[in-house]
């Protein structure tokens, strides 16, 4: 009988996605997309993927909403929030989309059912240094992938910063934020960060043995940073500050150092020998969580602005 819950959830996810695409107005689409992210977090729990649900919850509930709504506000101040009236129904696009969905459904039905999970993983897991298999895959077995992905985040941030204007370069990141002293928003910004930092650190810390880890905890900490910045508790830093730049590269740097350490010990680059795997992964997790948190927070806040761009 429990499939009825899955059916309800899937129907709602699909309906919300359709509302995002078909509804008139950009703002409505953004709100439905936020709801969509929340529902996806529930779907990941139903699919037994709590690690994914943690990341989706922090990103879907917190970061995407702020990112797109802030963009909407900026577009509105540039007079670019309006949408042209819908043209004719795009039949070719609808047919192509239906074909794409059909192909994926066909692939699902046609694909043979593999033995799950692969026996290689179960054999290798005791040597990984951590008990959470997702963390073992991320930071040990597929370390190359994860290392390069942490560099991709950095590349995205560099790309975003290249959009800053020359006269804004020495300004703090994002728009200047101000709140009524002692007001509701200011109080919220004071109460939430301590709890949030605690939750984020906890999620990073338990990642070795239970659902959690650098990516999940890093996204939580990034969202906490956004709360603190929006509520005026902290001022966003300037691009030129060295300490913050160091925080951005700490994760990839420690990851790379651990990889070189593995090579020095004769196990090969990015292959963690069993006796140092546990402590190496712990060090990587902490540094990577810091870098992911700072990078994502900076990406959402946006490039440095003077606050006069829209006038």
């Amino acid at each position, binding site marked *: 009988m429990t*499939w009825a819950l899955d059916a309800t959830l*899937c129907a709602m*996810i*699909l309906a919300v996605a*359709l509302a*995002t*695409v078909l509804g008139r107005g*950009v703002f409505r*689409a953004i709100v439905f*997309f936020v709801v*969509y992210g929340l529902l*996806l977090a529930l*779907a990941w729990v*139903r*699919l037994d*993927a709590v*690690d*994914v649900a943690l*990341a989706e919850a922090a*990103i879907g509930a917190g970061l*995407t909403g702020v*990112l*797109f709504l802030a*963009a909407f506000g900026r*577009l509105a101040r*540039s*007079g*670019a*929030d309006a*949408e*042209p*009236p819908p*043209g004719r129904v795009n039949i070719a*696009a*609808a047919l*192509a*989309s*239906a074909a*794409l*969905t059909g192909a*994926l459904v066909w692939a*699902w039905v046609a*694909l043979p059912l593999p033995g*799950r*999970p692969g026996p290689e*993983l179960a054999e290798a897991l005791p040597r990984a240094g951590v008990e959470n298999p*997702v963390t073992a*895959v991320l930071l040990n077995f597929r370390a190359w*992938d994860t290392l390069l*992905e942490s560099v991709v985040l950095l590349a*995205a*941030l560099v*790309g*975003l910063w290249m*959009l800053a204007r020359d006269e804004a370069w020495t300004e703090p990141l994002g728009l200047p934020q101000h709140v009524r002293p002692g007001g509701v928003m200011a109080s919220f910004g004071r109460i939430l960060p301590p709890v949030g930092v605690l939750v984020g650190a906890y999620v990073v810390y338990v990642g070795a043995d239970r659902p959690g880890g650098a990516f999940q905890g890093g996204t939580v900490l990034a969202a906490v940073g956004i709360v603190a910045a929006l509520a005026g508790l902290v001022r966003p830093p300037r691009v030129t500050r060295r300490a913050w730049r160091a925080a951005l590269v700490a994760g990839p740097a420690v990851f790379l150092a651990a990889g070189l350490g593995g090579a020095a010990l004769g196990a090969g680059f990015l292959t963690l020998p069993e006796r140092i795997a546990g402590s190496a992964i712990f060090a990587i997790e902490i540094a990577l969580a810091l870098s*992911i948190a700072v*990078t994502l927070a900076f*990406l959402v806040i946006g*490039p440095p602005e003077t606050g006069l*761009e829209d006038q």
Partner: protein
Amino acid sequence: MSGVTLYALTGAALVGTGFFGLIAARHLLRRVLAFNLIGSGLFVYLGAAGARGGEADPVPQALIITGIVVALSASALAVGLIVALARARGRAMLPEEDVGG
């Protein structure tokens, strides 16, 4: 029909929905949203594939987690480009599509 198949079909439908939005929408912010729908639809599809046979497979989960984070960073870059375009032109649409409205 098992629950996992249901999620796989939902993922497939999400990819189609997002693909339609990507082509049909003209406002660029909506295109980024649609692109995210495609991405997350594929994540759901992949996650469902990993959950077949009862136990959830950690390998797709690890891929999806990094994928979600990278998708957010790509969205942030795209949003930055759109805002820069809108400030330069006063419109958030591609020039060749900017007719009417």
